[in-house]
């Protein structure tokens, strides 16, 4: 018998002296079932937390302002609110209402539905249906609401109708412009509404 075989025999003889009770199979099966159940509950909790975190991250990314990429054409969504208002100002607008300092309409009845203002790349053209008013306009961002608007009237045709004096007088007081409910408003220095415009 080799030393290794002898060692095995000694270990066997030693082990045989150990009294072993019956295996608690049912207890082990029950305990394993509980462990598996706890593991499943843990997995569900972890997955739920993961979904909540991922949802939060998705919302955060959605609300995050997107940075412009160098060299990429800027789309409309990249423009600031002021730039949107500037570009939205371009075009021809009907003058729906013209308000005097008293707060009452000063639009002559004969001009209703006939007066329009066209803003085109710095050039302003007012059409009363009888005479044309020409001038320039400029905008710049305002610290608060809307845009600061500067109107400079340079000429007016002198047809015999001569009913546009209130319009010319009121346009001279315009200092700001805002947009609300699809209408553009022109405001005086004290933010009183001077004119209400509607895009043609």
């Amino acid at each position, binding site marked *: 018998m080799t*030393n290794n075989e002898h060692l*095995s025999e000694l*270990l066997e003889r030693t*082990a045989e002296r*150990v009294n072993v009770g019956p*295996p608690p*199979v049912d207890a*082990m*099966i029950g305990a394993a079932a509980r462990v598996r159940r706890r593991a499943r509950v843990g997995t569900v909790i972890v997955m739920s937390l993961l979904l909540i975190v991922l949802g939060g991250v998705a919302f955060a990314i959605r609300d995050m302002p997107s940075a412009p990429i160098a060299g990429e054409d800027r789309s409309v969504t990249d423009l600031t609110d002021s730039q949107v208002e500037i570009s939205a100002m371009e075009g021809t607008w009907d003058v729906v209402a013209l308000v005097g300092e008293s707060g009452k309409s000063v639009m002559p009845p004969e001009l209703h539905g006939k007066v329009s203002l066209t803003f085109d790349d710095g050039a302003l053209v007012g059409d009363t249906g009888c005479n044309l008013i020409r001038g320039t306009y400029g905008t710049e961002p305002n610290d608060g609401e809307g845009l600061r608007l500067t109107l400079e009237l340079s000429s007016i045709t002198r047809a015999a109708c001569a009913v546009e004096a209130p319009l010319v007088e009121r346009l001279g007081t315009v200092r700001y412009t805002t947009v609300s409910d699809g209408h553009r408003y022109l405001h005086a220095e004290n933010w009183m509404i001077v004119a209400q415009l509607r895009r043609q």
Partner: protein
Amino acid sequence: MSRNDEFSEYVAARWSRLVRAAVLLGCSPAEAEDVVQAALMRCLVHWRKVERADDRDAYVHRILVNTFTSSRRRRWTGEQATSHVPETPSPDHTVAIDTTDAVLRSLSRLNRDQRTVVVLRYYGYLSEQQMADTLGVATGTVKSRLSRALKVLADDSDLAELRGTP
């Protein structure tokens, strides 16, 4: 056959041997049953892995050794292996050297790694490769641990008497 049936069959066949292996690893008989029960429960939780294992016994031994190591780590203030076996209520005075006590004393002179490879090799009958897989070490490490362990046992006077050599 369901998983629980397979498990029950396996436990019925291996329970005694696994408990005795745990005793040889250094557990008291009562502690050995607890350790083996915990190890087998872990096996049942992951029974698919046991089924897929190339060598089911080697896999279970691996879980047993890990559970035993964890229990020793956790219970560092608990029972410690000792070379002095406490007196039993009914000691066998008629035998000069009790085989069991002598073997357990000899095993306790090995460090834990050496004791584990001796038990796995000469009681579990695992090959060196199986032991390497079980312990998660290289085959060379198993060989060196086994070699050192056998050298310690060869110099052990208690075992020498059992072998009939002075």
